[in-house]
């Protein structure tokens, strides 16, 4: 399946990825080749097969609602590129 340049650009926007024109061109070619390769799954009739979302037969892990020690605000913010008080600072999103 050949992806269009517009599709590549749209997916990059969805993924919040700034790609250069060169990267977009290469992505178009390589993703198309990978999508061709995965076409093989269409050979299989899976109309009556249940999907597997997880390798483990996950059970809900209920536990007691008890307070345990966690990171202090300073520890949690130690790696922040920018902070204000006890918050992460981001560019303004509201006028």
């Amino acid at each position, binding site marked *: 399946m050949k992806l269009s340049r517009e599709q590549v650009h749209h*997916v990059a926007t969805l993924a919040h990825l700034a*790609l250069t024109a060169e990267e977009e061109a290469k992505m178009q070619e390589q993703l198309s080749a*990978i999508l061709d390769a995965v076409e093989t799954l269409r050979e299989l009739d899976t109309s009556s097969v249940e999907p*597997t979302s997880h390798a483990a037969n996950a059970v809900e892990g209920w536990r007691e609602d008890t307070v345990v020690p966690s990171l202090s605000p300073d520890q949690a913010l130690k790696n922040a590129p920018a902070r204000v008080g006890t918050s992460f600072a981001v560019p303004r999103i509201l006028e």
Partner: protein
Amino acid sequence: MALTDFSMLELARRLAAGETSSVEAVKASLDRIERLDKKVKAFLLVDARGALAAAEASDARRRAGTAFGRLDGVPVAVKDLFCTEGLATTAGSRILEGFVPPFDATVVRLLKQAGLPILGKLNMDEFAMGSSTENSAYFPSHNPWDLTRSPGGSSGGSSASVAARLAFGALGTDTGGSIRQPAALTGTVGLKPTYGRVSRYGVVAFASSLDQVGPIARTVADAAALLQLLAVHDAADATSATTMAPDYATRLDAGVAGLRLGIPREYFELEGLDAEVRAAVEAAAAAYKAQGATLVPLSLPHTKYALATYYLLAPAEASSNLARYDGVRYGLRVPAGGLREMYAQTRGRGFGAEVKRRIMLGTYALSAGYYDAYYLKAQKVRTLIRQDFAAAWEEVDAILSPTAPTTAFKLGEKLDDPLAMYANDVFTLPCSLAGLPGLSLPCGFSRAGLPIGLQILGKPFDEATVLRVAQSFERAHNFVRAPPLGEG
């Protein structure tokens, strides 16, 4: 025999007997890293001070008779995917450059609680996506058996460090083969436990329904001893198994007489399976027969669909997991006009080519209009692959196959061809998709002198049988060797 040549258990025995000390072992490792890692390039970070402090504390415990356990004082190293408190953790990515975790991954805590000094953080493909370490944002690692070749990936720093005897053992992670394939390519023992056997808490997430932590070691018994430390329930990981792990040492030497070992036809018919690899694995199967095992021809009919299934599901999960790298809470931030621009610029600058490719593929597979055709379809085929194995377990106790289709390939050889690189994982992916335990151990060498790996797959939570089968081969046909590294 140099101190660094000892297996973990041999070193542990000497520590217990007072014949050497943990400080001596750490110093010997650091000295070897200093001399050889400029060639192998297994480490992203060496923590000499931390390792020596841990070794001194361990020696003090040994002197006082209060050792934490058998492996107290045995130095190891960990893949840079594990959070280490106070020690930079990059996941092989520029986007996490400078990130210093405020906490330890559960597996790191378990190593520390058992008294094992941690020598440092090991190189890897960025976010564990790759089969060669060439996707590391920092540098590729080199195979100690031939420095022009890859040590495999993504846990290639782990495999290279253990093979080159820079560390006595290491931890890696395996999502689609990232412990087993590098072990095969470096002549080491690598074990991916059952999904859920080992906690993922504090492990940088790649594909959460597949990721699993495990050991890379020089011997099967070392791998078993390391797994013993790691295989405990962790309330911090909702998928962590609550079933108690058995004592893996108890039945390790029980041999294979009476066991039924499956030989899956599809694994041996693959186009692209190297003739020498095939011959070595078939010879290993014959050796098992000579040891009293019954070889059972098997069919796992959906094997050939595993590659496509994996390369839809893992990127889909990755695209979701990697959304957290947005320049807000940690790591790189590229300032830009608005919030969305900051996200896009940060991610565009911070991620490497393969990670971007997988985020794009995963985002596409999950996007409106394509979800059913790609993501849901792959989840259904995953069910078929699981059913193949479920049927096989009615007939056999373990399954034998090659670990990788070839021996170690040249660095650069597959770098620009994602599909050729992905094909490396063809034998390791089905086990991952089914959540099974799988181990790779050395079963021979090619004429060019490169190690060949045998893969042993087991039933869910039956690591004990996998280890026992591996041990039975290793005892009779030991291919543990020191690679011919110059000592310069």
